[in-house]
C-alpha cells in the first residue's frame, strides 16, 4: 500500500492504524504530534481506530517552540 507522509512516499506491507503508523515510522514525540490525513485533522482519541488507506496523504505537524532565546 502506497501512502505519503510529509510529502514522501512510504510503502506499507499491511493496513495499519494511525497509532501503529506512528510507531512504525518512529515519529518523534508521538504523544504531541498533530496528525492530518487528506487535509483533515485526526483526533487523538481516534488514533487507535483510524485505519490508513491506500493513497492517503498524511502530515505529521510538530510543536516548534524556539525563536527568542
Amino acid at each position: 500500500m502506497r501512502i505519503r507522509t510529509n510529502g514522501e512516499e512510504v510503502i506499507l506491507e499491511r493496513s495499519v492504524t494511525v497509532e501503529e503508523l506512528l510507531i512504525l515510522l518512529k515519529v518523534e514525540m508521538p504523544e504531541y504530534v498533530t496528525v492530518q490525513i487528506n487535509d483533515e485533522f485526526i483526533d487523538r482519541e481516534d488514533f487507535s481506530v483510524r485505519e490508513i488507506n491506500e493513497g492517503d496523504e498524511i502530515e505529521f505537524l510538530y510543536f516548534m517552540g524556539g525563536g527568542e532565546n
Partner: protein
Amino acid sequence: MSLSNQQLERYSRHIILKEVGGKGQAKLLNSKVLVIGTGGLGAPAAMYLAAAGIGTIGLVDFDAVDLSNLQRQIIHSTGDVGKPKVLSGQETINDMNPDVKVVAYKEWVGSNNIMDIIKDQDYDFIIDGTDNFPAKFLINDACVLSAKPFSHAGIIRFQGQTMTYIPGKGPCYRCVFKNPPPPDAVPTCSQAGVLGVMGGIIGTIQATEAIKYILGIGDLLNGYLLTYDALKMDFRKIKIPQRKTCQVCGESPSINYLQDYEQAVCDL
C-alpha cells in the same frame, strides 16, 4: 500623506513596484506592527519592517542581551550585552530609519498585559517571535479574541515553521496544536540548539506576511503551515483546515478569556 523627497529616494525600490507604489509606501508608513520577542525571529523581522518604513514598531521583551544571543539575534551587537533587548532593538532601528517610531515594552507578555499592549497603539499586525508555548498560545488567543491578524513561527535545530492567522479567514494556531505540551516535554533552542540563520529565514517570512497584509497584496499563509528544513533545503506549504471544534475560534468556543500556562522551569 505625501512622501518627502528623502522618503521618495529611500523607498524608491518599493515605489517602483506596481504592487506598492507611493500609495502603498504611505500605507506602510502609517501602519503599526507589534513584534513580541526581539530574539532569533523578532530581530530580523523588526529590522526588515523598520527598513521597509513601517511607521510604528512595538517591541516586547523583558530580557537583556546575552553574549549567546549574538549568533543569530542580529539587531543586537557586542556592545549591547547586558542592555535590555527592547532598548538595544530601539537604538538599532532608530539608527537605521528615522521614519520609524519604536514603542518599547520591557515586559514579558502575560494574560494581565497582552491586551493592553495590543490596544496601546491599536496595532495592525502582530508577529510572534517568542520561544515558548505558554506565550505562543497566549498570543494566539489574544489575537483571536481581539480579531487581530498575526504570524506564528517557531525554529529549532535546522527546522522552522510559520503560519498566518487572519480573523475569519482560516485556522488559528490552536486549530492545529490544541493545547500547549507539558512544560519541558518539547525542547527549546537553548536545550536543542538552532542554526543562527533559521531565525533570519523564518523571521523575514513573518515580516513579509506583515508587509503583504498591510499592502493588501498577494496570498498570505492563512490556511497553511509553511515548514522549512535547512538540511534538506526543503520548503513545504501544508494546507491546514479550520477546526470546527477549536476551543478559541471554533463554532462554540470555550475559551473567552486569557490564561497563563505553566512555563518550563529551564526557560525562566
